[in-house]
């Protein structure tokens, strides 16, 4: 069975400080991993995915297969980064996503 763990429900960081949101996964196959974000009063939307290896809004995430992790990082937090962040694991076999419980990130001005 596949599982996604986000150990922090809440995370507060000062503006300008580095941010790291943790995500660990359990999956026997080759994972497809994503970070989704939900800003206040907006829809849940894709932030980034491991396969594209891109930086979106200053965020990056590296897949570490040895540690089964996909942590989301940003070197300098901005107030507009305050949101709910979900890590998700995809399964090509049955076309489903498994979501973590989410981390609410608050940037302190």
């Amino acid at each position, binding site marked *: 069975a596949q599982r996604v763990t986000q150990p922090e429900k809440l995370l507060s960081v000062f503006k300008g400080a580095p941010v790291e949101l943790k995500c660990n996964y359990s999956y026997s196959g080759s994972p497809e991993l*994503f970070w989704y974000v939900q800003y206040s009063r907006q*829809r*849940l939307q894709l932030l980034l995915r491991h396969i594209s290896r891109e930086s979106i809004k200053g965020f990056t995430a590296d897949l570490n297969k040895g540690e089964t992790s996909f942590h989301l990082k940003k070197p300098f937090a901005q107030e507009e980064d305050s949101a709910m962040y979900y890590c998700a694991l995809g399964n*090509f076999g049955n076309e*489903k996503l498994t*979501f973590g419980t989410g981390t609410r990130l608050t940037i302190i001005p």
Partner: protein
Amino acid sequence: NAGVTQTPKFRILKIGQSMTLQCAQDMNHNYMYWYRQDPGMGLKLIYYSVGAGITDKGEVPNGYNVSRSTTEDFPLRLELAAPSQTSVYFCASGERINQPQHFGDGTRLSIL
């Protein structure tokens, strides 16, 4: 471009009542999904569909039914509402699992 549209946005039901949550997408996506989100929990998959006429159960299908007669629409039916079904319901669509899922605004449902 509307994307994924869910109706209604809010609803209060009495125990035992039934209702249908509507979901429509205009992106011609084959894959559609229904999730529920309980407080402090992640999104749990209720049902999904990989194309018109094909549906399958997710993690928490009990108490729900779906149909997919067209590519655009994927309604979720609650037959006998129970307090345990109080939740926020999200519909999503996508092209494949490694492509972004597009979400609706959600339906906040309370069963009293």
